[in-house]
């Protein structure tokens, strides 16, 4: 047991921190601030191209697939630093969908899409959720049927984020309508080009200024080889990356940066009596609460990364999988609920200034806390509602019997 970064890991952090500080020019920062959580502007694409050239896309992909083959800990360091810098890196495309696509898509799709992903020229949106299929995703009703050598897709998706910038939708559709099989057994994954006939996309404006989309599939036809992986076996592709996704959702980089900025702000600003804001006991308590919460998050994410490349020798695979699942769910639940709490504790320090929008006169810390109040609610129900995570923890972590559903 040695719970500290090795000299090499520490060096990688330093290298990446410097790299991303340079990448995030004030102009890029302005562009990113104007489109929260999204990217998609000209400077964003320019930065993506540079990242691709410098080999910083696909860091976790195996070398055979064109990636850097970084260890899980190194990848976590990478994610930490990108997110700390505030660059809207398209992790879903590059780290979640990308490697699955590189492994399971047809040869033609692979050779067309993988180089584009790795060079930072392609974003893929995820089309899972539907108006009537949210938490209970397996009940989705969008269908794909084979007609000749084409799949015909009919249905509607909701909250298809980034679809407005994407070339493809990574779509889950029902391919086996047999009512007698379990509902998650008849689902397949397709790559749907956003320029296909019958496809449509309309924006959904959210409280947090994040624009997401409703996407429509009115008998959209795609070639047979747009099916990814095996027919009816798409559920595994949907859930295969979930543990990792849950972990990257609760990365501690951004909140660490926000805490540090708030500490600095409270040191730099004075009260009427001449004391610094940070001299007030309650401010110190709020900061300490956030600080001690962050420490856990850091350890949770690094431990899960460490575990991924250091399986316990001789451990029963079922037990190992259960504990990995429980830990990912614990991290997701803890992290998302901590974020909501942390944003409040930090906003209290800014007081009413935390209600001033980025674009407003008088805003502080680039309006981050103002915006986070409006975006934070997504995380506790998105990425698998926290109730589902707690169900998983009780069953997989504590072996408690669960209710029939």
């Amino acid at each position: 047991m040695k719970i500290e970064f090795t000299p090499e890991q520490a060096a990688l952090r330093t290298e990446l921190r410097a790299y991303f500080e340079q990448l995030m020019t004030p102009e890029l920062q302005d562009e990113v601030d104007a489109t929260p959580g999204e990217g998609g502007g000209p400077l964003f694409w320019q930065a993506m191209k540079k990242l691709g050239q410098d080999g910083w896309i696909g860091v976790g992909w195996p070398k055979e697939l064109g990636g850097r083959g970084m260890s899980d800990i190194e990848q976590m360091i990478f994610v930490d630093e990108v997110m700390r810098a505030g660059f809207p890196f398209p992790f879903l495309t590059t780290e979640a969908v990308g490697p699955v696509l590189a492994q399971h898509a047809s040869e033609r799709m692979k050779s067309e899409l993988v180089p584009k992903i790795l060079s930072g020229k392609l974003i893929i949106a995820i089309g899972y959720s539907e108006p009537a299929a949210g938490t209970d995703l397996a009940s989705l009703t969008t269908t794909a049927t084979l007609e000749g050598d084409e799949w015909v897709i009919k249905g509607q998706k909701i909250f298809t984020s980034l679809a407005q910038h994407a070339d493809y939708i990574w779509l889950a559709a029902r391919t086996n309508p047999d009512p007698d099989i379990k509902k998650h057994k008849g689902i397949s994954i397709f790559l749907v080009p956003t320029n296909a006939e019958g496809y449509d996309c309309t924006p959904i404006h959210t409280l947090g200024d994040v624009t997401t989309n409703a996407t429509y599939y009115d008998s959209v036809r795609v070639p047979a080889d747009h099916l990814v992986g095996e027919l009816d076996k798409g559920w595994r592709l949907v859930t295969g990356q979930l543990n990792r996704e849950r972990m990257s959702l609760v990365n501690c980089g951004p909140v660490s940066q926000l805490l540090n900025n708030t500490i600095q702000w409270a040191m730099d600003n004075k009260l009427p009596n001449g004391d610094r804001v940070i001299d007030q006991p309650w401010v110190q308590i709020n900061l300490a609460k956030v600080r001690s919460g962050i420490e856990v998050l850091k350890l949770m994410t690094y431990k899960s990364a460490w575990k991924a490349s250091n399986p316990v020798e001789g451990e029963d695979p079922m037990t190992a999988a259960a504990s990995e699942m429980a830990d990912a769910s614990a991290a997701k639940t803890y992290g998302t609920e901590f974020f909501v709490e942390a944003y409040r504790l930090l906003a209290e320090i800014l007081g009413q200034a935390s209600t001033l929008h980025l674009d407003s006169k008088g805003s502080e810390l680039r309006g981050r806390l103002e915006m986070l109040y409006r975006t934070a609610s997504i995380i506790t129900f998105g990425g698998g509602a926290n109730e589902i995570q707690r169900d998983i923890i009780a069953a997989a972590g504590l072996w408690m019997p669960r209710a029939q559903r």
Partner: protein
Amino acid sequence: MDFSFSDEQRDVQNLAQAILNDKATPERQDALEKQGERYDAQLWAQLAESGLLGVALEAKYGGMNFGFTELCLLIEEVGRTTAPVPVVPVLVSSVLPIQRFGTDEQKQRLLPGVASGELLLTAALMESCNENPATPALTNARAQGQGYVLNGSKLCVPFADKAQRILLSAQTDTGVGVFLLDPQASGVSLAPLKVTSQEPQFELLLNNVMVEAKDVIDTGAKGASIMQWLAERTSTAYCAMQTGVSDKSMRMTASYTGERQQFDVPIATFQAVGHRAADCYIDVECQRLVTQQAISLLDNEREATTEVEIAKIWTGDCGHRVSFAAQHLHGGVGIDKDYPLWRYCVWSRHIEMILGSSASTLALLGGRIAAGRAFAN
């Protein structure tokens, strides 16, 4: 980053588990409590015989020559069984600083006896309204001849009546002195206290007590840093104990609710019950991680004040929440003294309040943040 345990560490853990599960049964603890003293001398002797009391002692004092990590694995198992043995007062608060800062004569005189189980040591870390042993306020020491004369008082001193020496700090002319007090010396009086955890504890009153030169560890130059060194290790050791206490009470709760039926189903199948238990799982995981980090840093003699404070904050919060969740989900059985859960609950409170609560530790951490010493890097 390495979260694994070595083979030797697993061996220590397994050995401790085997002995404690066998000897520190609820029946045995019940019998001792009924006799009026929560101390298992037989078990202590057995731990000595197995070598575990010397787990972090150098071989020349009869120890196994392992470090703080291995010692904390033993302590976690003591927490997991609520075994009535003074592992932290003896093996951490007094043995570690003596081994690190004591004179050769002190080490030769005291440490082999601890390893063999023949003698106990303890430390007096608390004064009334003062939980920081690095800044003693109610105890002072005046040089006289070769030795020192001590006056003052300490509160909540564990096993003071059985200890050969009590390590304590006192104000001196030049700073903070660290002394090894003989509780049999003239001018010492011990008043027994009655505490939640039932640990034998005493108020210690010092009235012109002479401490000989050979029992002085430091007279003031380094005393405060020695006390800080041992306080951080003591806090962290109690955090390790809490991991065992909370983990076990959570697992007892999971299996009890899986069996207990109401409304014709196991109560675990109510989502509200499952979720309260899941929250315990999250708390225990959080507490375990920050504790392991603190242990690892201290074992490598890194500066770890921030990390120890964070571990102590989590320990108090997690201990409290898991204790009440476990009792709540057990219903009446949880507080029946024939069922062992209550011991875990009282030990959670014991650990929570030692060397600073979550709230007072948060204030310390906040102070460090304001001084620019605890950014989240």
